[in-house]
């Protein structure tokens, strides 16, 4: 059942063919039904008209005989009538198409009416309804009915025509009925119905076949377009649709191919730009690093020798040294960011134990310098994830550096947790917290919360941390409340490429 539903939902062709079959079957069925009804009723009408005419003549003859018998002979009426029936049923020989039934005399009770009839027709053959009409009135009555007549007394549709006969002598009344068989008409109708049924069935099948062929004709190019588009989307940019003729499909193919070419050009252009950018970054990196190395070495030599300088020169050497560190950090952060922007950042995956990573921050120099105590939660069991250890390390260091620089928190809590699909690491401080949209803005490049609280740094740490997380397909989110502290949660998927739900939620989340 599910498969059928699925087929119905997925295959346009199935839908087209099925609905064509159902609708054409309905149309053909209706037409056939109307046709049969029409033909049936006109056949019956014809038969009835002929029957009534013939019966009328028969009744005239019978009444005449009755009249003349009374006038000429003294034989009992019953004999006359029996003779009459015999002659009426006998004179057509084997070609006779009717049966006769004579009831009467009708003076007795309804049930005790004596009956004479032609050989096979029995008393029950006359429906009660017409019987009552004939007894009550003097006209000619007819009715369709079913009666056991013929050689085998088979239930056969008949038209019954009846009239009252009056014996002039005794004044007795008789009811006389003609039963005309409609078997022939019924057989004609059955033949026709069978022919219609077979023809209709064949027609429906043919229409279905035509629908299948036509829908294929239309759908085949559509399916091909789908396959080509899928391959194109999968990165096979050379995929094109064959253009054949000038019909709508060909025009669709042409448009598709134009779109593909245009996309391919754009993508190639962007790829070139990206390559140029990477190349530029790499060149800048080298060109800047060499002089920076020299400056740095010279600065260190001066710094080491600062005891021998006068105070102003010595302080200058210290400042030079400190700012060189910052310059170097800034350069390396900028290069990292431009690598992210150029899409050139690559993951070097290994099995990383987040609990182990978290334990390392006990020894974090930045925290201990700022006098911040660290407490760990959830690090008793290893929490493994497939990730780039260097980047995970950097994320945590950036988060801790941020706490040390801006939070004014006396302690920090590092929590590790896992779900079947994701792992999370949270860094929670109990300092000044965040207000307004700061929980979003802290990830902006060069954004610093409170310039007065700023203590150097590049202002790029959290941006890089977020890029690092995103490179893993993970997330880095921050929460905070003024005076209550802030929490940043890193969430990574256990398998890269699977969307993640964090394994931790912040109690600061509103």
């Amino acid at each position: 059942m599910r498969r059928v539903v699925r087929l119905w939902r997925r295959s346009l062709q199935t839908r087209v063919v099925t609905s064509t079959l159902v609708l054409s079957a309905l149309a053909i069925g209706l037409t056939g039904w109307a046709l049969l009804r029409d033909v049936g009723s006109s056949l019956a009408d014809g038969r009835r008209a002929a029957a009534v005419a013939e019966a009328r003549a028969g009744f005239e003859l019978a009444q005449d005989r009755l009249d003349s018998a009374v006038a000429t002979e003294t034989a009992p009426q019953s004999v006359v009538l029996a003779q009459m029936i015999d002659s009426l049923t006998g004179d057509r020989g084997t070609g006779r198409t009717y049966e006769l039934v004579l009831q009467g005399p009708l003076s007795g009770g309804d049930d005790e009416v004596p009956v004479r009839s032609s050989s096979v027709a029995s008393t029950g053959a006359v429906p009660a309804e017409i019987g009552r009409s004939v007894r009550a009135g003097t006209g000619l009555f007819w009715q369709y009915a079913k009666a056991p007549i013929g050689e085998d007394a088979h239930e056969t549709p008949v038209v019954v025509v009846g009239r009252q006969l009056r014996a002039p002598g005794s004044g007795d009344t008789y009811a006389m009925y003609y039963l005309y068989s409609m078997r022939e008409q019924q057989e004609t109708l059955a033949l026709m119905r069978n022919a219609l049924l077979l023809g209709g069935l064949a027609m429906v099948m043919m229409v279905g076949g035509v629908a299948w062929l036509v829908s294929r004709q239309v759908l085949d190019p559509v399916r091909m377009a789908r396959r080509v588009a899928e391959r194109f989307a999968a990165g096979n940019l050379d995929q094109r649709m064959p253009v054949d003729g000038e019909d709508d499909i060909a025009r669709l193919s042409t448009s598709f191919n134009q779109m593909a070419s245009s996309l391919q050009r754009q993508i190639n252009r962007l790829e070139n730009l990206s390559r140029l950018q990477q190349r530029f970054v790499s060149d800048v990196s080298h060109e800047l690093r060499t002089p920076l190395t020299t400056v740095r070495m010279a600065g260190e030599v001066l710094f080491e020798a600062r005891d021998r300088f006068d105070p102003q020169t010595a302080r200058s050497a210290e400042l030079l040294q400190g700012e060189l560190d910052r310059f170097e950090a800034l350069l390396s952060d900028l290069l990292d960011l431009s690598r992210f922007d150029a899409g050139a950042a690559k993951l070097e995956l290994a099995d990383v134990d987040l609990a182990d990573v978290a334990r390392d921050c006990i020894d974090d120099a930045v925290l201990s310098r700022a006098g911040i105590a660290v407490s760990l939660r959830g690090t008793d069991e290893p929490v493994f994830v497939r990730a780039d250890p260097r980047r995970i390390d950097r994320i945590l260091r950036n988060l801790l550096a941020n706490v040390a620089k801006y939070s004014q928190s006396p302690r920090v809590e590092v929590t590790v947790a896992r779900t079947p699909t994701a792992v999370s690491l949270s860094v929670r401080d109990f300092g000044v917290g965040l207000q307004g949209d700061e929980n979003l803005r802290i990830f902006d490049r060069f954004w610093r919360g409170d310039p007065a609280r700023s203590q150097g740094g590049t202002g790029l740490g959290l941006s890089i941390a977020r890029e690092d997380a995103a490179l893993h397909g993970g997330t880095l989110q921050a929460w905070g409340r003024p005076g209550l502290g802030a929490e940043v949660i890193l969430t990574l998927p256990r398998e890269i490429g699977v969307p993640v739900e964090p394994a931790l939620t912040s109690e600061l989340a509103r």
Partner: protein
Amino acid sequence: MSYRRSKRDRVLVVDDDGSLAEMLGIVLSSEGLTTEVCRSGDRVMEAFASFKPDLVLLDLMLPGVDGMTVCRRIRERSAVPIIMLTAKADTPDVVAGLEAGADDYVTKPFKNTELVARIRARLRRSDAVGDPIEFGDIVLDPAAHTVTRGGQPLELTPLEFDLLACLISDPSQVFTREVLLERVWGYHHPGDTKLVNVHMTRLRSKIEDEADNPQIIRTVRGVGYQAIDPASGKNTDPPPRAR
């Protein structure tokens, strides 16, 4: 041939950048090393032949012949320790340099102390005059700094020698890459395992019959490396020769 402590170690600095080369000279001299500067890749081999350095400090980006080629040429002729200076910390460049024969690398910009520590680590020799270690058909002589396999001498660089010595000193132990970094390279550089991987590959290519099917040092997946004890059954017979 033990280490002569009396002699000042000689470092050949190969760098195209004049200021940096001079600055390197100043810093290394102040650390008690004798330096010579070579400014062009084309003249490195001459300088190498005449100066006979104990260590080469090589900038990978050189005009003329590039750093990789210089590295390979020096390595063809000598087992002298080579430390690369590289501005590209990206893995492929570093790995290419290590594969060209460099023992270690320093990324620009660096701290003077870091550079000196790396140079010292490469210059350090074990003066322990221990007894030769026999390991299967391998004989490692710490005093003479020679290794033979089945009587045939193996040409190992000092670093490869140290690596092998470290591993066979205790076949019961699996050495992680971090431990090897600390013991052989003499410093701890977290996560930098490519140094170990590249040199292990080269060491195997010199001592193993088939590098793809190591019989002397096995890789313990996810952990590190371990020498396969020749006494422990599996490898008592020499491995079947391919040819």
